[in-house]
């Protein structure tokens, strides 16, 4: 149907021109008449291209001869001069028509190229997005819209793009593309190093033809584009094909870049993990060796024969040995606890306990650690018993108090407050130390994170709070740093009053 339109237009243009000339024929000289026909041919050429222009030229030539060149209503030409000008007219009509048509084709092509360039530029802009999944989704939708497709999918290694990026006009198109990709995944399970796919250029899915276009980079196939045309639409034109080919090449570069980025990231992650391991080993060995140094020096002293030690001296050495051995035991215990909690074999053994007794017990046990600090206990009178694992919660409280003692200046007070708080029992351990910067308030619960302040080395292994957090959470409680405290640090943890609350 569309193919006939130019010719109909050519006939119509010549007919209308003939009629117009007919109205004025008596007055106009023949040369002007031919000029009018030329105008008609030019219009047809610009609007409908070269074939229509040639048809219009021939028709104009015939009409001119038939209606206006004497003897009229015959194709015969009386005057040989007339014959010459008639032939000249035909030649002029065809040449100008062809030239005008070519100009039109050039303009159209320029427009086409401009569109391609714009489309590709926009696609490249979308590909610059650092998140590959989002970038490919945006590009797919962009190309689909520009080429008026029902759907377009981009697929590559599952390692860098877990799901294909699919842009679809409707659910049916999406399903057709997804169906095509799952069929293909069976063929190629995305194994590392096996990127070449032996697939034909077309796949049938749900009765619809899905075209497959490979995406390559550096000579290797690294992915593919699937194209689902609009139902009943014509094949893609050469310009659209070119567009897709260039887009595929750009996608290849984008995907390759993402792959390199991921590789670099993986390497970085490995390096960090390694660094962390080294740091951990360093921290653990320091934490084990520090008490060992005191123990060895004390034991060595006791064995020296060149001095006669007084009972008091011996007692001092023995005390150092005992204290530092206990400290070693705590470090080892913490390490074991964490590994037990981390590998999931930890289940609290809950029974009902009086909170006040627990707090006093902890304060008593920690006296050797808190010798340099006055410890104030403030336990609310009418606290209900709580269902908890006595050993574990005692450890939580111990860890907090030990930290308070370790990080606050000698002589400053440590306060332990326990009270009721809206269905929970709230434990607070406050000190007058340097406090915890707000930025680190969450980080300190991460295993092996130790805070170091300017001009001060980090101390401890960084396990106490990590363990405390896990133990409290196993009791459905919460633990945090109170950020409203201006001076020192206040650590808070809560346990639900009803042990059966989940």
């Amino acid at each position: 149907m569309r193919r006939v339109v130019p010719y109909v237009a050519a006939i119509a243009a010549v007919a209308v021109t003939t009629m117009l000339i007919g109205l004025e024929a008596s007055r106009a000289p023949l040369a002007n008449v031919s000029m009018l026909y030329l105008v008609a041919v030019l219009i047809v050429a610009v609007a409908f291209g070269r074939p229509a222009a040639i048809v219009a030229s021939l028709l104009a030539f015939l009409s001119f001869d038939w209606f206006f060149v004497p003897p009229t209503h015959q194709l015969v030409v009386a005057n040989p001069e007339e014959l010459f000008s008639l032939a000249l007219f035909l030649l002029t009509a065809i040449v100008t028509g062809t030239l005008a048509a070519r100009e039109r084709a050039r303009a159209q092509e320029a427009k086409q190229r401009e569109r391609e360039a714009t489309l590709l530029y926009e696609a490249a802009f979308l590909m610059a997005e650092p998140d590959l999944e989002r970038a490919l989704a945006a590009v797919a939708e962009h190309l689909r819209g520009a080429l008026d497709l029902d759907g377009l999918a981009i697929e590559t290694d599952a390692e860098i793009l877990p799901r294909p990026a699919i842009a679809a006009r409707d659910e049916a198109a999406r399903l057709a593309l997804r169906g095509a990709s799952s069929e293909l995944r069976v063929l190629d399970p995305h194994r590392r190093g096996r990127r070449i796919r032996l697939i034909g250029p077309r796949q049938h899915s749900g009765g619809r033809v899905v075209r497959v276009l490979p995406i390559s980079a550096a000579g290797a196939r690294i992915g593919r584009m699937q194209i689902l045309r609009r139902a009943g639409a014509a094949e893609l034109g050469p310009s659209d094909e070119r567009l897709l080919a260039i887009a595929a090449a750009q996608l290849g570069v984008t995907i390759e870049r993402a792959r390199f980025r991921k590789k670099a990231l993986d390497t970085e992650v490995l390096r960090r993990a390694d660094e962390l391991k080294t740091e951990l080993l360093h921290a653990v060995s320091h934490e084990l060796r520090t008490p060992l140094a005191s123990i060895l020096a004390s034991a060595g002293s006791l064995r020296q024969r060149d001095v006669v030690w007084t009972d008091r001296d011996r007692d001092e050495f023995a005390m150092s040995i005992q204290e530092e051995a206990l400290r070693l035991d705590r470090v080892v215990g913490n390490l074991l606890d964490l590994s037990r909690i981390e590998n999931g074999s930890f289940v609290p053994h809950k029974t009902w306990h009086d909170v006040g007794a627990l707090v006093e017990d902890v304060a008593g046990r920690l006296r050797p650690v808190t010798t340099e600090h006055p410890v104030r206990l403030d336990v609310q009178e009418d606290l209900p018993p709580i269902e908890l694992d006595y050993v574990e919660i005692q450890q939580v409280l111990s860890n907090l108090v030990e930290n308070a003692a370790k990080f606050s200046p000698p002589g400053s007070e440590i306060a332990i407050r326990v009270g009721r708080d809206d269905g929970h029992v709230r434990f607070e351990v406050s000190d007058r130390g340097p406090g915890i910067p707000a930025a680190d308030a969450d980080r300190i619960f991460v295993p092996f994170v130790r805070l170091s302040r300017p001009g001060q080395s980090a101390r401890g292994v960084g396990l106490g709070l990590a363990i405390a957090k896990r133990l409290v959470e196993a009791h459905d409680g919460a633990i945090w740093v109170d950020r409203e405290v201006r001076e020192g640090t206040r650590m808070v943890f809560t346990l639900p009053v009803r042990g059966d609350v989940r």
Partner: protein
Amino acid sequence: MSVNGPHGEPTGARLLVVDDEPAMIRTLRTNLRGHNFQVETAENAAEAKASYDRRAPDLILLDLNLPDGDGFEVVRHIRERSGTPIIVLSARGGERDKVNALDLGADDYITKPFGIDELLARVRVALRHLARPKAGTERRIHSGELVADLERREVTVGDRAVHLTPTEYDLLKVFLTNPNKVLTDRMLLQQVWGPDYGDESHYLHVYVARLRRKIEDDPQEPRYLVTEPGVGYRFRSEEL
């Protein structure tokens, strides 16, 4: 004051012990007092500097890992004021720290955990250096079979004369005038090759190896020029 103890060391010397571990402080204080030293203690850099300024101790035992700042600051503070011997206590693996402390002017180091006898031996050596005439003023230096005549630039081992190149001689002289003291690569390079040197440890290793071949009975098991792994060398003098 100069009553000699059971090991011939001057007793009654005043020591300053700087460590942030209460148990270590207690143990060292008790032990050193039992060995007739007067002991002051400090738990951080500020206390250490204040105590030094107030009491002018004869020797400082200094842990580098202090809660309120690094021990290097203490070394610097003391070296700006005097040559009082400083023995650094540091953890194993902290070779960098030891070298830095020695370069700043510390005299010796001992790695934690240490044997208490070893520590006492180091303390005695350092104190004896104080009691001796300033090293380098003597014209003849003996150690075991090694004899050096600094006036005539002659070195003999037993009855064998040792021929040294000028650089070898200069290097040996630095060792001889700093007996039993740990010398870092940097110190040795700067004293022998000049202040522009410091990182060219390989020069040093070559010359030390040559010296050992000339003065040691068994260069594999040196008697005089001992390697301090990761730190430098020490000339072990037997004349104490």
